[in-house]
């Protein structure tokens, strides 16, 4: 989705404020939003890709004028509504109007440390040979899906070189929209910064993790 989350290369956001991070949180509610998002993620009603998609599909004006945890709050609300776990009226009032829907799991306090240490690996057994090898020159697809994708706009339709192959990983583009994990080979592609930005850059190169279906061999033809 060409949403406001896809910030790479945008300008005029002003200076970075490294000194702003005296604390990781500005208010207690931010802590609760973080924890609720993690705990609800553990119920198994949705996955990390659905969760990212819910946040980034906020209208751009709202996304850009919201703080980080406001975006998380809105994303969590959206997921609760779309899965029917709660109604807008309930969330607004803080009162139950309907019985709970079943969830696959509830993360209990005593399970938290082990769950965090375990994490949620995204690699899956390979079911196909890798199409590309380290060293191959590839070109990212020109594409603009209206649903979730992890190929940033600034590196679509660009040539780069494969510098690593990571095995097969869950494919966010399908996993985010209920089409399953459909694991694909994942590669790191190094783009010459000039290929991405022309002369208007101080980077030498930018490396981006790309799933196999984001990539193709460059079109044969005059360079």
């Amino acid at each position, binding site marked *: 989705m060409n949403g406001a989350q896809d910030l790479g290369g945008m300008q005029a*956001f002003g200076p*970075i*404020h490294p000194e702003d991070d005296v604390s*990781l949180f500005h208010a207690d509610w931010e802590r609760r939003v973080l924890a*609720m998002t993690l705990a609800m993620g553990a119920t198994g009603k949705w996955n990390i890709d659905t969760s*990212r998609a819910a946040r980034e599909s906020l209208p751009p004006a709202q996304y850009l004028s919201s703080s980080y945890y406001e975006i998380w709050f809105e994303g969590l609300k959206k997921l609760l509504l779309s899965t029917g776990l709660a109604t807008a009226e309930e969330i607004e009032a803080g009162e139950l109007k309907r019985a709970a829907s079943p969830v696959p799991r509830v993360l209990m306090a005593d399970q938290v440390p082990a769950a965090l240490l375990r994490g949620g690996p995204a690699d899956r057994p390979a079911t196909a040979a890798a199409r590309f090898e380290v060293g191959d020159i590839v070109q990212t697809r020109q594409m603009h899906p209206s649903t979730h994708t992890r190929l*940033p706009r600034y590196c679509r339709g660009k040539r780069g070189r494969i510098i*690593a192959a990571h095995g097969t990983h869950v494919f966010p583009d399908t996993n985010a929209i209920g089409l399953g994990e459909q694991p694909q080979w994942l590669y790191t592609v190094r783009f010459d910064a000039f290929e991405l930005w022309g002369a208007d850059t101080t980077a030498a190169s930018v490396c981006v993790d790309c799933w196999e279906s984001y990539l193709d061999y460059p079109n044969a033809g005059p360079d």
Partner: protein
Amino acid sequence: MELRVRALETVLVEKGYVDPKALDILIETYEHKVGPRNGARVVAKAWSDPAYRQWLLDDATAAIASLGYTGRQGEHMIALENTPAVHNMVVCTLCSCYPWPVLGLPPVWYKSAPYRSRAVIDPRGVLREFGFELPAEMEFRVWDSTAEIRYLVLPMRPPGTDGLSEDDLAELVTRDSMIGTGLPKTPEPKRELT
């Protein structure tokens, strides 16, 4: 927001979807237990122990796990070695991907639009805003964390640190030096400007 968030929490708890004590433990963990001191231990060990350094560069997930740092948002780790010729900087332009087990939760600026927008196009300008300038001939390599691979920068060991213990070395490793927006401290701080 305080009231709206409390209302939401009430609904989730009363419906039985979340255990309120689990929320407290999640917060306690990421606010006080997991943080960049973990990453500093990894870096200090790599500076002190060539075999560990090589393991970290070959298989960062296993090398980092050997120190007990595993799990959520660090399932697949890669270490990026800074050298006299190459400076690495890590960003997530699409959201806020960050290696939690070694660095904790990301700082506010890492998640903010100014950093996410500019790191990929003007890393040198970004580093300057953090107060550092690197030689013009040094190559800036930026890593955009678009998948579930998480990156940890292995900064160069500062000069004048021969004979320091791992514990003392870890004190020199700043969080920002492991993101690539800073450099480690030196025992007698001095910054080189080009």
